[in-house]
Structures are given as structure tokens and as C-alpha cells.
């Protein structure tokens, strides 16, 4: 029975880190600032902007690929939304178009990677530069306003609250996480994702179209980045060409902390969900504890190492118990 529990719930290590982290930060933050209503509210509103992207990026990593262009796609999608909206298009329509744009950019990443057989690391390094450059060129690097308050229901959909407290952004995050949990763990597409990432040759010999599995995952990432860009731009009410800078590594770190293997084929959506929460909490903790910027790296490093070692420890325990 015990072996089955560990086998089934592979994210137990990440859950342990998550709980310990909350306790530590809650306890050690000056004046217990971490646990104030305002801070939790901030976490739940701003956190999902990164966390939603992590869900998609983690799925892609399980399929065996990486997307370094997420930050640039974020900026480009924000730009498209801002231009469409200020040109007079209804925000809902602008939103739908931007999601499609994100999916198309994801498709481009995917098709180049699989057809030209280039490592996704390289492809998305290129597209990262491309979309950032295009955004800067077209926007002139100028910050532009994007106030959707004239459409209160639309605005509330992305930045309102439920029951006066629970932020809409967090609801989006949880809903998308649930959707992806079902897709990855309960749907046959999820088995194709795992097979493709774990042993692409085996998957192909079983007639799984690994190319389309990967392209599909890239498109999911693109669409989620687009969603996040809209959530963000509504909150900030302005477009800035610098958004998303450096996000690619935060996203990958979050997925790794969540138990996703860099080699593909391994990871769980709940783990990825928790990994994103952990990274967001760490960044929040660094702010409220007023730790110097240099400590950020130390903390990231320690958390990632602990996650990897804990994962190894649990793997070894599983082998022992399964015997």
C-alpha cells in the first residue's frame, strides 16, 4: 500500500518543499508580513501571470522540448492586444485574436523544431530574439496606455475578485491547471506526451505522431503565454516592451522545482503547479524579507538542488518498497 502511494503521487517531494517553504517564510518574515491578507492577495493576483506559463512550459518539457521564447511572446502578444484595443476593437475580440497569435507563434516554434530537426533550445533562442526585436521595432520601445476600465465586465474577468477577495487570476490558474491535469494524466494525448518525451523512437514505432504531439504542446504554451499577457496588461493598464524579460529561466526553474526532468518524459502537472507556486512564493519572500538581490540566486540554487535531491531520494525509496 505504501509503495503504491509513492508510485502514484510522484509530486510528494514537491508538496513537502511547498509546505516547508510556506511555514519557513510565514514564520521568518518580519512582522509575519507573508501571511497578511494583503500579501496573500498580491501573491494570488500577480503570481498567476508567471505560473500560468509554467503549466504550459512544464507540459512541453515532459514532451522533451523547451521554449525560451516565452518572455518575448509575452511582450509581442501584449503589444498586439494593446494595438488592437486602442484601434477600437472590442477587448473580447482582441483577446481571442491574441490567443490565436500566441498559438501561431507556438506553432512556428514547433514546426521549425520538428521539421528542420533543430534542438528546441536553439529554435526558441532564435524566436526569443525575433519576437522581442519585432516588438521593439513596431512599438518603438515606447510605453503605451491600455485602459480597459470602460469595459468593466471584461476587466473584472481578468482582474476582479470572487467574494471580494479571491482574485480572478488565481481562478484562471486553478482552472487551467485542472484542465491540464486531465489532459496530461487522464487523456490519451497525455500518454503520447509522456511517450514522446521518454522514448520518442518507441512512440514513433507505436505510430504516435511525435511531431504533432510536440507542435501541440508548443501551441498550448503559446496560447497560455498570450492569456498571461492579457491578464498582465489589464492589471498594469499599459503596454511596456520590456515585459517578460528573463522569464524563460524562471519558468524552467519552476518546472524543474516541480519535479519535471530536463531530459523529458518525467513530471506531473500537480508538481508543476506546486513548482510554480514555490518560485512565486520565493520571489515574494525575497521582497518582503528585504533580502539583497544577490541572495535571489543563492535561494534559487538551493531550492532547485533540494528539489532534485529529494526527487532522487524518493526514487530510491520507491525502488526499495517495490521490491
Amino acid at each position: 500500500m505504501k509503495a503504491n502511494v509513492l508510485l502514484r503521487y510522484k509530486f510528494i517531494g514537491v508538496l513537502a518543499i511547498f509546505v516547508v517553504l510556506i511555514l519557513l517564510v510565514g514564520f521568518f518574515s518580519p512582522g509575519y508580513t507573508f501571511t497578511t491578507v494583503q500579501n496573500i492577495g498580491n501573491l494570488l493576483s500577480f503570481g498567476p501571470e508567471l505560473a500560468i506559463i509554467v503549466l504550459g512550459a512544464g507540459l512541453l518539457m515532459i514532451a522533451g522540448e523547451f521554449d525560451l521564447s516565452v518572455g518575448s511572446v509575452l511582450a509581442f502578444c501584449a503589444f498586439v492586444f494593446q494595438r488592437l484595443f486602442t484601434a477600437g476593437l472590442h477587448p473580447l475580440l482582441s483577446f481571442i485574436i491574441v490567443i490565436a497569435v500566441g498559438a501561431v507563434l507556438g506553432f512556428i516554434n514547433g514546426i521549425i523544431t520538428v521539421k528542420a530537426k533543430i534542438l528546441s533550445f536553439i529554435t526558441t533562442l532564435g524566436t526569443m530574439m525575433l519576437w522581442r526585436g519585432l516588438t521593439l521595432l513596431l512599438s518603438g520601445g515606447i510605453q503605451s496606455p491600455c485602459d480597459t476600465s470602460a469595459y468593466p465586465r471584461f476587466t473584472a474577468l481578468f482582474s476582479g475578485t470572487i467574494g471580494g477577495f479571491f482574485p480572478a487570476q488565481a481562478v484562471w490558474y486553478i482552472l487551467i491547471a485542472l484542465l491540464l491535469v486531465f489532459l496530461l494524466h487522464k487523456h490519451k494525448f497525455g500518454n503520447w506526451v509522456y511517450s514522446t518525451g521518454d522514448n520518442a523512437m518507441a512512440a514513433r514505432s507505436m505510430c504516435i505522431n511525435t511531431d504533432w504531439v510536440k507542435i501541440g504542446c508548443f501551441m498550448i504554451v503559446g496560447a497560455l503565454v498570450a492569456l498571461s499577457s492579457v491578464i498582465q496588461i489589464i492589471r498594469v493598464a499599459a503596454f511596456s516592451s520590456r515585459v517578460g524579460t528573463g522569464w524563460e529561466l524562471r519558468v524552467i526553474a519552476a518546472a524543474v522545482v516541480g519535479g519535471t526532468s530536463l531530459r523529458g518524459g518525467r513530471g506531473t502537472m500537480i508538481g508543476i503547479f506546486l513548482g510554480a507556486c514555490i518560485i512565486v512564493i520565493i520571489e515574494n519572500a525575497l521582497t518582503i524579507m528585504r533580502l539583497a538581490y544577490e541572495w535571489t540566486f543563492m535561494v534559487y540554487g538551493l531550492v532547485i538542488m533540494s528539489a532534485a535531491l529529494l526527487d532522487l531520494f524518493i526514487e530510491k525509496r520507491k525502488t526499495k518498497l517495490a521490491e
Partner: protein
Amino acid sequence: MSELLLKLVEIDKYFGKVHTLKNINLDINKAESIGLVGDNGAGKSTLIKIISGYHQAEKGEIYWEGKKVNLRHPKIARALGVETVYQEQALAPHLSIARNIFMGREISQTAGFMNEKKMAEESMSALECLGLNIRNSEIPVSKLSGGERQGVAIARALHFHAKLIILDEPTVALAVKEVQEVLQFIRHMKSQGIAVIFITHNLHHVYSVADRIIVLSRGEIIGDIKTKDTDVDKLSDLIVTGTMGKLA
């Protein structure tokens, strides 16, 4: 009376300018086990890939159960009942046994959601049919021994009602006991009326389970002998010298 299952007629295969297979003529009967031997570069892998629909021959015809077929995609070969167990490409190591067995052919209900309970049940029965003593289909296959992994891959092929199972080097890198397990699986398949082709470099293994031995050399069949009409030394000579007519 043995029935003809697969017939290859004058098969030629080129990779660019390289004439990989030359005028291959081969008959395989139901429930026959065939050892495919030959040195490296002889064309064994190419031949089995043609039979499994992975490659297409430039010239020649293939007949399955008497009817002419065009194996232009592995899916077509699989639908006819040809299953292949490739060497390193059979299983995903970190996936469970059940998910591996149903890889690409997941039992699903509405909207593609998997019926995991049924997959687990059918996996267990597939393993039991082969005599594999594995208690839990949720174990990742990397935790199994080499012999058990081959067993899972073979159980998968059996479960999907294969009529011809092709094994690419099934005994390589296995311990003695595991080799015996795999050879026993091959005998089991024969007893179930399934034809088996297996590629191997180990003439002793081939000798212990094959009805017939096909010797390939530089793309040509230089020997098609009943096992009882030869022995390991003669086979070895044939492969090494690569000439016909050495067996009187």
C-alpha cells in the same frame, strides 16, 4: 499442413546508391519461427523494416495470407497482424507497464479519456498469458529486468493479436537466465500459432528455438535451411565465408 502467411517476391531495396537488399524471395508459414542471421551490414534490419512497413521496397511484391499488399506504413502492417519489437525502441523506461502496453493504442472512452482500470486489467492478463510474474502494472518498466522488459514488449505484441512477431536482437545484453526466459517466450508464441522472426548474432540461441534459419549476406539470402538440417559450426562457416553451396 503449414499455411503460407507471408511471401516476399523479388524484393529490392536501395538507400541512395547502396543496394541494401537484392532479389529477396522469402516464404514464412504460420506458427513458424525463423532465425534471421548474418553479419553486420547484411541487411537484416532493412528486411524486417520492409516487412513491418517502415521502409518500402523499390521493386518486388509482398503477399499476406495469399493476397497482395502494399505495406506503405507501419499502421497497415500492424493492422494485418505484424508487430515488431525493436531493440532499444520498444518501451518508454519511466512509463508504467500498462501505459507502455497501450502506447498509441490506449483504451479510451468519451473524448479520448483513458480507461485506466481496463488498461491495468488487460495488461495484467497479457503478462499472465506469457507467464510473466509481475504483480503490479503501475511499475515503471525501468525497474524490470532485461528479460522482463522483453516480456512486456512481447506481451504487448501478443495482446494486439499479432500473427507475425518480429524481434530485433531480443537476447542481446541479457543474463543467461533472462535469455532462457526470452527463448521460452518465443516457444510460447509458436505454441499460440504465431509466426516469429528474430534477428540475432547468437547462433546458439537461434539454434535452440528456430524451425528455419535464413542467412543474409550483403543483401542477399545465401541460406534458407531447416534447423535440423544444419548445426552451429556449419552456420558459422556460411556466415563468415558468405558463399552459397558450402552445405552439401
